[in-house]
C-alpha cells in the first residue's frame, strides 16, 4: 500500500509558493530600460530552467514526506501468531443450526485477527486440514463459507485425529505463538489416534490448545477437553448458547490480542532516496542552465 510517512511535509510546497510570491530576492530588483524587448527574448527559453527548479523543489519535498510502500501482511517469521481453527463438522452439528452459528462467529473471529497466520481443519468421520497456515484470509473465509455439517462424514467424530493432524501443520513453523482452537459437540469415537498421542504432538510443537464444547452437557466429554487444554496451557470453555460462544471467541481473541498487536510487523519500503537523487539531478541541471553562457 503506497503512502507517505510524513504527508504534512507537502505544506512546504505552499510555503515555497508563498515565499515565491511575497518574499522576492531584494538584492536583484533593478530598473532596466527597453524591457518589452527583454520579454520577447525571455519567452523563447528559460522554461527548462524554471521547470527544473520546480521539479527539484517538488522532489525535495516529496523526499521529505518520505513515500513508502507499507506491507502489513508480511510478517517476519517467528514474530506473528499462528492460529489453527479446528471445527467439528460431524452430523450432529446440524442440530439447532449449530454449524451456522459457529461459522458466523468464526468468520468474525478470522476477520478480527489481523496479521496472523491462520489455518482451518475440520473433522467428522475423519479429519483433514482444509486450509494450511496462511495469510490469505479471503480464501480462508471462502472455504469457511462452503463448510457444512457432514462434509467429513456425518456419523463419527474424529476429535483426537483432528488435534493430531492440525498440530502437525505447525511442524515447520518458527513462530513462538502457536494457538489451536478446538471446537466440538461430541466425543471422539473413531479411535484412530489415542488421546495421549494427540496431546503429546500438541505439546511437542508448543501449541496452546483452547477447547470449546458446544451443546448440552453429555454431548461432549468435558474431562477430555479439560485435559487437553490443561496439558497444553490452554483453557477449556463450555458454550450452550450463541451468546456464550461469541463471548468465548472474544475472550480468546482478547487473551492473545495485546501481544499480537505488539508483534505486528509492518514492512516499509522507503523511496525517498530516489526522489533525493532526482532533486540532485534537477538542481544540477538548474545550476548548469543558470550559469551557461
Amino acid at each position, binding site marked *: 500500500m503506497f503512502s507517505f510517512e510524513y504527508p504534512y511535509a507537502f505544506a512546504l510546497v505552499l510555503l515555497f509558493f508563498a515565499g515565491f510570491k511575497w518574499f522576492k530576492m531584494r538584492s536583484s530588483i533593478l*530598473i532596466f*530600460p527597453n524591457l518589452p524587448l*527583454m520579454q520577447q527574448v*525571455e519567452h523563447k527559453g*528559460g522554461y527548462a530552467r524554471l521547470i527544473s527548479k520546480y521539479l527539484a523543489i517538488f522532489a525535495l519535498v516529496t523526499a521529505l514526506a518520505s513515500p513508502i510502500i507499507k506491507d502489513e501482511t508480511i510478517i517476519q517469521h517467528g514474530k506473528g501468531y499462528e492460529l489453527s481453527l479446528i471445527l467439528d463438522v460431524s452430523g450432529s452439528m446440524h442440530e439447532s443450526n449449530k454449524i451456522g452459528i459457529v461459522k458466523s462467529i468464526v468468520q468474525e473471529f478470522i476477520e478480527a485477527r489481523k496479521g496472523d497466520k491462520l489455518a482451518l481443519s475440520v473433522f467428522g468421520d475423519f479429519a483433514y486440514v482444509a486450509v494450511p497456515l496462511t495469510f490469505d484470509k479471503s480464501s480462508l473465509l471462502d472455504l469457511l463459507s462452503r463448510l457444512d455439517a457432514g462434509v467429513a462424514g456425518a456419523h463419527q467424530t474424529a476429535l483426537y485425529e483432528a488435534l493430531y493432524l492440525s498440530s502437525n501443520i505447525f511442524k515447520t513453523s518458527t513462530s513462538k505463538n502457536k494457538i489451536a482452537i478446538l471446537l466440538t459437540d461430541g466425543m471422539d469415537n473413531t479411535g484412530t489416534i489415542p488421546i495421549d498421542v494427540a496431546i503429546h504432538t500438541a505439546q511437542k510443537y508448543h501449541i496452546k490448545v483452547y477447547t470449546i464444547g458446544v451443546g448440552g452437557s453429555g454431548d461432549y466429554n468435558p474431562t477430555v477437553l479439560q485435559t487437553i487444554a490443561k496439558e497444553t496451557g490452554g483453557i477449556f470453555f463450555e458454550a450452550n448458547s450463541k451468546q456464550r460462544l461469541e463471548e468465548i471467541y472474544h475472550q480468546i481473541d482478547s487473551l492473545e490480542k495485546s501481544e499480537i498487536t505488539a508483534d505486528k510487523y509492518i514492512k516499509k519500503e522507503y523511496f525517498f532516496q530516489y526522489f533525493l537523487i532526482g532533486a540532485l539531478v534537477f538542481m544540477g541541471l538548474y545550476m548548469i*542552465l543558470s550559469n551557461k*553562457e
Partner: protein
Amino acid sequence: MQTQKAILVKTKRKIFALHSGNHPSIFESRGIDFREIKEYTFGDEIRKINWKVTAREQSPYVNRFNEERALNVLVVFLVSGSIYFGTQKLKQESMAEVLSALCFATLNQGDYLSTLFFSDKEEFFHAPTKQTGALERLVDAALTLNPLSKTVDYTALNHYIMNRIKRKSLMFVIGDFYGDVDLSALTARNEVYAIMVRDHFEEFPKLQGEHTLIDPNTMRQSSFSLSGSQLKAYAKKMEEQDARTIAHFKKHKIKHTKLYTDEEPYEKLFELFRG
C-alpha cells in the same frame, strides 16, 4: 548627479576650448548660407556684388544668401522612464549635458532657441528666446524632471510639432530612441538631428540569473531568469531595433550620432555638425 552649474561650466569650457577665437559656434556652416549667384537687378545691395564674377562676365553679379540670419533652433528632449538608467551616470544627465551644449551654442550665436520636453504629451515647453539666462532654467528642468512611468509617443510628438512649430527650424532630438522611432513628420519642413544617448550596460547587459526587473516606462515589475544565450539574443535584437531606427533616420535624412554615458558628448556633437 551633477549639478546644473557643473554642467554649465563644463559646457562653456569645452565649447570654448574646442573652438578657439570668438566663434563658439558649432553650426559654423549654417546661418548666412551662400545660396547662388545672380545678375544684378535694380535694388540689390552693392555690398553683395561678386567682383570676380562681374569682372569675368563683364556685367554685374551679386551673391545671394539665405535670407534669414537668425535661425530657429528647437531642442527636443524625449522624456521616457528609460532615461533613468545608467552605470556611469544617468542617461538623463548625459542628455542634460547635450541639451546644455546645444542651448549654449545656440544662444551664444544669437539664434532663437525653443526647448521642448516631450513624453507622450508636452512636459515642458520653453518659448523661443534669445536670452542666455534661459540656459540655467533649461538645464535645471532637464536634471530635475521625473521621467519614471513615462513613455515617448512618437505619433503624438509628430502631431505636436506639426501643430505648434510653425517656423522652419533646426531641430535637435535628444533621447534614447527605444521602440518604433518615427520622426518622419518633423523632417517635412525642418532639418533634424538625432542624438541617441545610451549606456553600454543596457546594450550588453550582464544579467545572468534571476532578477526582478522594473520597466521604468510603466514601473511594472516582472521576474526574469536569464541565461547568457538569452542575453546574447537580447543584444542582437537590440542591434536590429537600432538598425531599424538608423534606417529610418537615413531614409528621412536625419543626421544622427550615438553617445554613451561614459563619455563627454562634445567631440561627437562637433563631428555631427561638421560631417
